[in-house]
Each structure stands twice: as C-alpha cells, then as structure tokens.
C-alpha cells in the first residue's frame, strides 16, 4: 500500500499525525463520482471528435440530418471536452489534492455526511447541465458564442453547481492543519476563485444579457484564454507541484521560482487570450497586449518547467510510474504550448496562421496535453488510495498512456503542418480557396487516425476505471456479508 505519498511532508509541523485514510474516506465518494462522470464525457467527446474529423474528409458522412451537421457537433465536442471532461476532472482533482494538502477531512461526523451529499447533488446538477446543454446545441438552441454555446439556463446551472462544490476547496484551505501553504495550494485557491469570475462574467456579458456586439470580441477572447490559463491549467499545475516531488521523492527546490512563476502566470494568463484577435477588429493596443502577453507567457512556463522537471526521477517505480509519467508529459506539453504560443503571437506568424489548423493545434495541445495529462496523473494516483488497494489493470493503464501520447502527438503535428501549408497558401491570393481546401485533405485524412487512437485510448481508460470500481463494489459486497 502506498499511503506514504501525500502529507508526510508536513508531519514536522507539530500537529497530530495526519490520518490520510480519514481524509480519503471523507472525499472518496464525491471524487470518484466526479472522475467517473468526467471519463464518460471524455469518451463521448472523443467519439464526436472522431466523427468530426471524418466529416472533414467526407463531408457527406452522416449527412442530411440537421443535428449531425458539423456546425452542431463541433461545439458539442468542444464543450464536452471543456466542461464534461476537463472541468469536472479538475474539480475532482482539486478536492482530493486540497483535502490531502490541507491535512483535513472534508467535514466530520454529520457535517461530513451533509457536505458529501451537497457536493454529490451539485455534481448531479453539473452533469445534468452538461447533458441538457449538449442536447440543446444538438436540437439547435446554441447561443453561437464560441465555448459558451450552452443556453443561458444551462450555464447558470453549471455556475451554481461549481459554487456549491468549489467553495469547500477554498474553505478547506482556510481551515488547514498544516500551517504552511504549498505552491500547489495557491494554484488551487486561485483556480477555484477564477472559474466563477471568468465563467460568470463571460456568460453575463455574452449570453445572459449580451452587450452591444462591438464590445464582444475582446471579452470572447479573454474568456477562452482565461478558461484554459486561469482555471484548468492552474489545477493541472497544482497536481504537478503537489504530486511530482512526492512521486520522485524529492523536495521542491528553487521555491522562489515557483512563487514568481505563479504570479506571472496569473498576470499573463488573462491577457494571453488576446492572441486570438491579433490584427482583428479591436483597438491596436489590445493587439499589442496580446502579442506581448503571448510572447512573455513563455517565461512563467520556463520557471515552472525548471521547478518541476529539475527533479531526478530514479525514485519512481512500480505503480507510481504511470501517474508520474502522465504528470511529466503534461509539463512537456506545457513547454510546447508555451513555445508555439509565443511564436504564433508574433504578428507575421499570426497573420498567416491564425485561422488555420495551427490555432486548433494549439488549443488541442492545451486541452488534451497540458491540462488533461496531469489530470490523468491525479486519477491514476488517487483512485488506488481512495479505494485502499492497487486497482489498476497495468495493461489498460499502459495502453491508455501510449495511445494518448501517440494520438496527441500525431494530431498536433498534423494540425501544425496542415496549418503551415494552408496558412502559406492563404497568404497567396492567387491560389483559390477551394484549391487550399484540397491541400489540407491528406492532413485531414491522417487526423482521423489520430482521433481514432484518442478514442481507443479513452475507451481503455474507461474500461480501466470500470474494472477498478466494479472490483471495489464486489469486494465491499463480500466483506459486507
């Protein structure tokens, strides 16, 4: 059993020894329900992405049906990836990490039962909102605002549900028994405060009570940038900061770098989204701000990378390899995100590539790479501890890991290359648009293969988790009788 991972670090702080078992027991049900739902949405989103990639090769595929057109499936897949999978997994990871790092169970006795019931009800509400929002897009009730396509009532449900869950993560921090706060905890507090602000502001001004459309452009960009850089990425980074030193049995060195990285990421994260509108219909200074923020974003990324990849990895073995690998790969993805992000923020590059698959490659690398990979790491690390036994099927785990990496790598490389080709062609007005479309055909064709790999990867993960949970259920049934 591997219960030594989390809070032993702080056993010296003078408080009574922390009972990780009690902490895990207090968050077990909410965390498992959140992760479980997140994974089934990941499977659905991956299947939809596969269908979408096929549609770019054969536009007639599943054609002639209103609710299966590209324009409806694309926002469904993206929103499921953002809210069904990533945000929900981030909530799960956030609660487990926060409880462990704060050395406190999520409420005790009756209060604990009440809290768990509340969080589980909020989770049901979250998933209901995702389901109904998705069906609304399918049925033709999309708001038409990128990444905010859910109708107003569905996004209000999401926000309410988030508040009901997220507040406990922040309160846990306030009532921690460990005294000293870790970098991971700052990231978590920040992320849990930002989501309501970002999502609430954007919905208010773009969906619930849209302001005059001349002002919507910067707000849309700010929302997309902030959702990734200020909500999902901080949770992924919290996971890396919390788990990597423990998994590799190192202390985090260069803590000052972590502090500086945190505040810089926080500052630039909000401005970073403006790279979506470089050269667009916004005041010139906003374009400049987008360029500067996009280029500077590489600095906190480098600081974080030095922090997290500077640790020797020879201490990792056995069941810890998969979570540690996922976390490491997430950091590598972040490096690429930072590099591509700063290159593509340069006005000349953005001018040629902004509307091509290159931009999509960047988004995919954010969501599937820098954000999802660390979240997978938390899942693989937390579930055995929550269930109190090694629960993973090693074959499924390693297949999920390999297929995910190959899938993401292939997808991103194809999109970058495809983007470069079409971007250069688009810059030459003598090449007709339909001609350019035909250039991207081979890339689109191979993207189908990449999406298929990602689908299979998601299915392996789903099987792995199902088997683990079914095993737990049977075990409890036996011991119960």
């Amino acid at each position: 059993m591997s219960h030594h991972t989390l809070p032993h670090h702080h056993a010296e702080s003078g408080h009574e020894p922390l009972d990780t078992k009690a902490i895990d027991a207090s968050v077990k049900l909410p965390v498992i329900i959140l992760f479980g739902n997140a994974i089934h949405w990941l499977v659905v989103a991956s299947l939809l992405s596969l269908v979408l990639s096929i549609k770019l090769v054969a536009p007639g595929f599943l054609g002639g049906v209103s609710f299966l057109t590209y324009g409806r499936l694309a926002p469904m897949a993206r929103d499921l990836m953002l809210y069904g999978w990533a945000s929900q997994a981030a909530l799960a990871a956030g609660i487990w990490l926060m409880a462990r790092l704060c050395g406190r169970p999520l409420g005790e006795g009756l209060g604990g039962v009440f809290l768990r019931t509340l969080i589980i009800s909020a989770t049901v509400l979250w998933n209901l909102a995702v389901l109904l929002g998705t069906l609304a897009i399918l049925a033709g009730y999309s708001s038409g605002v990128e990444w905010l396509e859910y109708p107003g009532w569905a996004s209000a449900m999401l926000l309410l549900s988030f508040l009901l869950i997220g507040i406990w993560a922040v309160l846990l921090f306030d009532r921690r028994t460990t005294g000293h706060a870790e970098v991971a905890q700052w990231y978590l507090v920040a992320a849990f405060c930002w989501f309501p602000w970002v999502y609430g502001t954007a919905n208010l001004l773009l969906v619930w009570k849209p302001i005059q459309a001349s002002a919507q452009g910067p707000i849309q960009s700010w929302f997309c940038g902030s959702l990734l850089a200020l909500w999902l990425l901080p949770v992924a980074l919290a996971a890396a900061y919390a788990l990597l030193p423990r998994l590799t049995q190192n202390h985090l060195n260069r803590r000052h770098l972590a502090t500086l990285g945190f505040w810089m990421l926080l500052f630039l994260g909000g401005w970073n989204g403006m790279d979506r509108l470089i050269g667009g219909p916004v005041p010139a200074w906003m374009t400049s701000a987008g360029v500067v923020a996009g280029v500077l974003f590489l600095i906190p990324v480098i600081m974080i990378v030095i922090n997290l990849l500077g640790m020797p990895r020879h201490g990792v073995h056995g069941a810890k390899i998969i979570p540690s690998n996922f976390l490491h790969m997430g950091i590598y993805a972040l490096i690429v995100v930072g590099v591509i992000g700063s290159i593509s923020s340069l006005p000349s590059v953005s001018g040629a590539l902004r509307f091509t698959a290159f931009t999509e490659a960047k988004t995919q690398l954010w969501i599937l790479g820098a954000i999802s990979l660390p979240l997978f790491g938390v899942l693989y690390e937390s579930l055995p501890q929550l269930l109190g036994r090694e629960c993973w099927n090693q074959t499924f785990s390693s297949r999920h890991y390999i297929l995910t990496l190959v899938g993401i790598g292939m997808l991103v490389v194809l999109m970058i290359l495809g983007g470069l080709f079409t971007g250069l062609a688009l810059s030459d007005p003598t090449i007709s648009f339909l001609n350019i479309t035909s250039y991207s055909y081979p890339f689109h064709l191979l993207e189908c293969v990449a999406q298929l790999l990602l689908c299979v990867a998601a299915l392996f993960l789903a099987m792995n988790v199902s088997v683990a949970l079914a095993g737990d259920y049977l075990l409890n049934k036996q011991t119960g009788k």
Partner: protein
Amino acid sequence: MNRLPTLLSGIFLVFLTSWLGLVAYPAIQLGRLAPVADADNGGTLPPTYGGQAIAGQHVYATEGCISCHSQQVRQTSITSSDIERGWGVRPSVARDYLRDSTAFLGSRRLGQDLSNIGVRRPDAKWHFIHLYHPAAVCEGSLMPCFSHLFLTRKIQGQRSDEALELTGEDAPKDGYEVIPTSDAKNLVAYLLALRHDYPLPEAPVKKAGAAK
C-alpha cells in the same frame, strides 16, 4: 501568503488587470460606439438589418456556422491577403458589429470569411442552392448540406416561385419541388446583409483598392 485573505487579495488584484483591460474597458468604450451618419443617403452606418436578417442571425448561431467561418477582415502592415483575396475592401473594426446580436468573429477558416459575402454573392438563388448542396456549385467544398432547411413537397397546381432550380442528382422527383423554409430564407437574408463595403471614420475605403 500563507493566509487566505492575503492570498485572495493578491489573486484578486492581479486578475483585475486583465479583467479591467479586456472586459470592463471594452464594455464601457466599445460597447458605447454609436452609428455614424451616412452622407450619401441620410441613413446611418452600419446600416440596420431587416427583420428577416435579424432572425437569420439566430439561424447562423444555432447551425454553428462560426465553427468554420470567420467574420473579420484583417489588414495590417504584414497581413494583406484578406483584402487581396477580395474578402473585403477595408479591415473590420469594432463598429462593424454594432448591429449584430453576437459578434461572430470566428477562429477558424475551414470555409471562407463571410464579412462581405453579401457583396461577393448578391444572388439569393445561388445561396439557396449552395446551402441545399454546396458541392453542386462549389466542387470540392467541405461544407455539409443544409438540406434540413428545405422542404420537398408535391407541386400543387403551379410550381412555386420559390422552388430551387436543382439539376442532376439533386433534382426532386417529377411533380415535386424543393422550397426553402423560413429558417433558410432568414439565413440567406442575413448572409445578403453581410456587406461592409462602406467607409467608417476609423476605416476609410481606399479608392484605388476598392472593388469598383
């Protein structure tokens, strides 16, 4: 930074910068942009949309046109291909979106930019056939068929004036006709209204570069 209030105020202050710059500023400044007078005909610019076009925006949103089509023409010292391609005669500015319910800026061009589709394709009939079966008029197009915005019905008495002139495989059976639903008509009205070929104070139309 070990105490929650300290940490929270730090987070709040830093986050406030981008919120003020990219949310509050646009809401106050760009959100109050007003139409300008049109010297030529005494109207205002950008022109208002007709009722059908307003309803058409809703169809544009719900069908997810934004997944593949942008609505922004860029012109900087470096980027000039949008205009050279004929997608507009001047760069898009914030005021251009004043009459829209949602700014459909878009982030990917799997299809063409539509800021000036009403200038490039002023014929409603072309749009109906294109929506019904894009590849019939644009060979190699990736656009899906929006045939669900049309109705195939038995011709009663005389053939409707609205019926699509379809040929080849698309043509309906003898005695039948394909007519656009109100959604299709509204969408096309909106597409035809997408024309930003007039000058604005902050975005004059250069005579030499103009289409005509």
